[in-house]
């Protein structure tokens, strides 16, 4: 059993523990799961600018129901997985690294900045990519702008409060 090394990556899911690279054969499964996720995002209409507006205007329960039910399902699954000593199909013990709280400023401020963008584009990152195929090709420009945003954060990072 080797000691997992922590990569410098801290974009989403701060300092992800990466014991070993993914076996190429497994990539097919990630692709299939991704296809399923893109399909579900589309069918559930969470990719819709109109649905996001409806949510932020508190005019429908739908989005709250979707996010709430997703959280409950995920929380129950995680609780069950923690109680079992199941290993993943790739042979690793299942563990979810916790993000360090720090001062919490990055979560409050970063979250608020993302929220502004979420309401303007009507899409969070998953839907941005699902929208390419859903008849909104101009969203590719929003994705490029998002990459520029992430790059700018990386550049400004030493000067930002965390």
């Amino acid at each position, binding site marked *: 059993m080797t000691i997992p090394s922590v990569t*410098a990556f801290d*974009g989403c899911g701060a300092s992800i523990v990466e014991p070993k690279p993914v076996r190429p054969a497994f990539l097919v499964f990630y692709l299939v799961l991704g296809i399923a996720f893109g399909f*579900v995002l589309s069918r559930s209409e969470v990719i819709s600018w109109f649905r996001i507006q409806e949510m932020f205007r508190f005019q429908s329960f739908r989005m709250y129901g979707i996010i709430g039910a997703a959280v409950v399902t995920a929380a129950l699954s995680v609780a069950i997985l923690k109680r079992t000593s199941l290993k993943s199909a790739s042979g690793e013990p299942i563990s979810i690294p916790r993000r360090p709280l720090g001062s919490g400023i990055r979560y409050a401020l*970063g979250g608020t900045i993302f*929220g502004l963008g979420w309401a303007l584009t009507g899409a969070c*990152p998953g839907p*941005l990519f699902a929208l390419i195929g859903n008849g909104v090709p101009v969203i590719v420009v929003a994705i490029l*702008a998002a990459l520029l945003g992430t790059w700018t954060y990386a550049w400004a990072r030493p000067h930002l409060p965390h």
Partner: protein
Amino acid sequence: MNALLYSDWPWYVAGPLIGLFVPALLLLGNKVFGISGNLSHLCAAIAPGKLEFFRYDWRKAGLWNLVFLLGVVLGGFIAFHGGPVQDIAISPNTHAALSRLGIHDFSGVAPHQLFNWHALLTLRGFILIVGGGFLVGFGTAYAAGCTSGHAISGLANFELPSLIAVFGFFAGGLAATWFILPLILGGL
């Protein structure tokens, strides 16, 4: 079967299905569900510059997630070609509120008036598409997560940082919806 696959799904079907991606990724390879990390991985792969934030092995940390993301794009295409969304059945109140802001085309998933190539040349379209996209990329990197990483994975793991982030998501979303959008769309 077709009706099930191609109609809009109710929240109590869509929500649990979305939540199941968390255990699915954990069981497959001990991976934490979260989309926005891919923006970092793409930057690290394409233009890391000399920035410390991108100084990690993106293949090792994120190739699985980039492949997942490619799947999301394909899944969107498959859903669209199976039966594109014609009209989103939004609440009459939302319909009325958006109409007052000048939106009259309610077909498709996003308003064609605002999200098309020509709109990019207008200040309004530029702010929505380029400005909005930039804020999504900057904010998710700063907050270390988006709706999937914080609102779903993080909350499901009872993480305080994620709860703070989700409050931020809503603070920003409400501000943009109630104060910024009326300014941008005014006179549409």
